[in-house]
């Protein structure tokens, strides 16, 4: 009995030593693979798994293999915080990617800040990086930038009076507030401000009211999920003869399928280069990165790539680039390197971080897209 125990202890010690000798880069992630945000978290998780496998096949980062430790928080902020704690204390990760939603991200922020672990969020809201937090970065554009991009485009079309119809979900609410906040800077007036619930099946009453408001020249619909698809269908049902703008929240091919190509004809939204894919001009700086990711993802999972998976792709690439430049997997060194990211080409844009800017994108990285004949095309 006694010998057996000793053997077991020896074996355990050997295992522990072997683990330490490999000196892997341990990457943590908590994403919402299930739950209400699963259509965001699912492609994000798949993207991370695929990229880590690719990186390891190519010899790892700085010759070290990457180990991905991933948890599914189901969109629950409490679980996200618990998993962040587990990643830091038990798994002893060197960096964390995650927080599919703004809620889960903000629940993890105090933890990563006090434990000093670099953290790249995949969620949208501006509060994540404004004010700047030492260890917190993010990859998607903010909703405020989406509003600005849309209003710039409206200015170009001499539109000065608009109607808004916003979802009451978190995304729709936040973007509506940001849009109302910046709209005056563009000399645009919001004449109608309608709302709809995230599960509503028909928005014709709200759109009828917008149609009956004198002077409305265009309609803007902040929201995601099925709402914008239904708004687009109702918009065409009522034959409203004015431009319809959607948000980056529905920037995916499935939006065209859900709304129907006919109803979606002429709809504009600010999107990323990923959506246009092979349709990008040959000399577009993001073309290579975007096409490579798109092909790899679609070959691996046999489903269309989405903007959200692109956010995870960019986070992984920022981290890989930072660890290469830092030359070590020390969390502090990684953090400093991320902050100095310069000219990194991602799917959402070209990332230039500074100590004051932990997002590194501007409105020029957004592309104004229009749906023509059931496909995304670049405006201008």
């Amino acid at each position, binding site marked *: 009995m006694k010998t057996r125990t000793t053997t077991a202890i020896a074996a355990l010690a050997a295992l522990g030593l072997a683990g330490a000798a490999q000196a892997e880069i341990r990457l943590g992630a908590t994403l919402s693979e299930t739950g*209400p945000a*699963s259509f965001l978290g699912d492609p994000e998780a798949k993207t991370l798994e695929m990229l880590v496998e690719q990186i390891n096949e190519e010899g790892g980062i700085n010759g070290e293999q990457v180990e991905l430790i991933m948890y599914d928080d189901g969109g629950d902020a409490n679980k996200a915080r618990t998993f962040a704690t587990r990643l830091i204390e038990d798994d002893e990760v060197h960096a964390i990617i995650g927080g599919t939603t703004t809620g889960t991200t903000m629940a993890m922020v105090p933890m990563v800040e006090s434990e000093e672990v670099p953290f790249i969020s995949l969620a949208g809201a501006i509060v994540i990086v404004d004010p700047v937090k030492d260890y917190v970065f993010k990859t998607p554009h903010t909703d405020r930038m989406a509003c600005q991009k849309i209003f710039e485009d409206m200015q170009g079309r001499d539109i000065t009076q608009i109607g808004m119809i916003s979802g*009451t979900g978190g995304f729709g609410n936040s973007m509506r507030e940001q849009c109302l906040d910046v709209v005056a800077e563009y000399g645009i007036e919001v004449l109608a401000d*309608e*709302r709809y619930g995230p599960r*509503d099946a*028909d928005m014709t*009453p709200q759109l009828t009211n917008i149609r009956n408001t004198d002077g409305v020249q265009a309609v803007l619909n902040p929201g995601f999920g*099925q709402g914008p698809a239904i708004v687009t269908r109702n918009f065409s049902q009522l034959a409203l003869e004015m431009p319809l703008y959607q948000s980056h929240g529905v920037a995916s091919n499935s939006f065209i399928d859900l709304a129907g190509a006919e109803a979606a004809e002429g709809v504009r939204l600010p999107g990323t280069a990923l959506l246009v894919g092979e349709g990008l001009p040959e000399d577009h700086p993001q073309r290579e990165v975007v096409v490579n990711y798109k092909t790899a993802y679609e070959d691996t999972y046999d489903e269309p790539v989405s903007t959200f998976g692109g956010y995870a792709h960019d986070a992984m690439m920022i981290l890989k680039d930072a660890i290469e430049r830092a030359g070590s997997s020390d969390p502090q060194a990684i953090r400093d390197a991320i902050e100095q990211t310069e000219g990194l080409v991602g799917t959402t844009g070209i990332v230039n971080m500074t100590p004051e800017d932990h997002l590194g994108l501007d409105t020029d990285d957004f592309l104004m897209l229009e749906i023509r004949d059931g496909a995304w095309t670049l405006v201008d």
Partner: protein
Amino acid sequence: MSELIQFLFSGITVGAVYALVALGFTIIYNASDVVNFAQGEFVMLGGMITVFSFAAGLPLPLAALVAILVTAGIGVALNKLAIEPARGAPVVSLIIITIGASIFIRGVTQIVFDKQLHRFPSISGDDPLELLGATILPQSLWVVAGAAAIFVALYLFFTRTMTGRAVLATSNNRLAAKLVGINTNWVMTLSFALSAAIGALAGVLITPITLTSYDVGVALALKGFAAAMLGGMGNPKGALAGGLILGVLEALTAGYLSSQYKEAATFVVILAVLFFMPQGLFGRKSTERV
């Protein structure tokens, strides 16, 4: 004037969706006094299975039929595996079992299928019909027609057929029903199969309008349940009326008052009705013989 008509069209579209879901609650409730909270999941399954059978190459009517039959099978399985073993349990426990079943079905669906939104083509195209200066989509008329057809079928089933009366008898007093020779187990199985089939048919009809994904069931069941309570639980007439009233109320509130508070306004009306008529608009008064 044309705007009122447009609001009413919207209300009828949405109301018919609620009514279809509400009608699904009636049979199981009538057979066992159990409010089946997995009813929304039956609706979701009807839509999701149709989507994936259609994508696999089946023609749409066949895909819909497959969805209805498979869902009916799942309804039977729910009864055999979860409800029947707990036969002696109080109604509240059975209701909690159906909530558990709905979570289970949702979980399995997101693994077997996926987590994305889906839609399939409308039965007769997407060109809106114009009437009195307002427009309505042909699919809305299909939903209304579906709700009306199921209502008539249920009404005839419960009042004109021996099986329908057997279902009501089982609900009233299971022991007495057994004594007069009704196979109550069979009645329960039948009622779950029929409820699931009605739910799946609802899913097939409404998906072109509402879209579907693995998690649409909860919201639909909640609205359908509210509609059924408003009209009177267990009464097909009540389900139909409750659904349409709920839909029209929402549309009118969104149109004339505020789209932000349309659900709050609607639920205030429901509360007021239930306060004065606890059995709902068409509910039967329950009398307890001591």
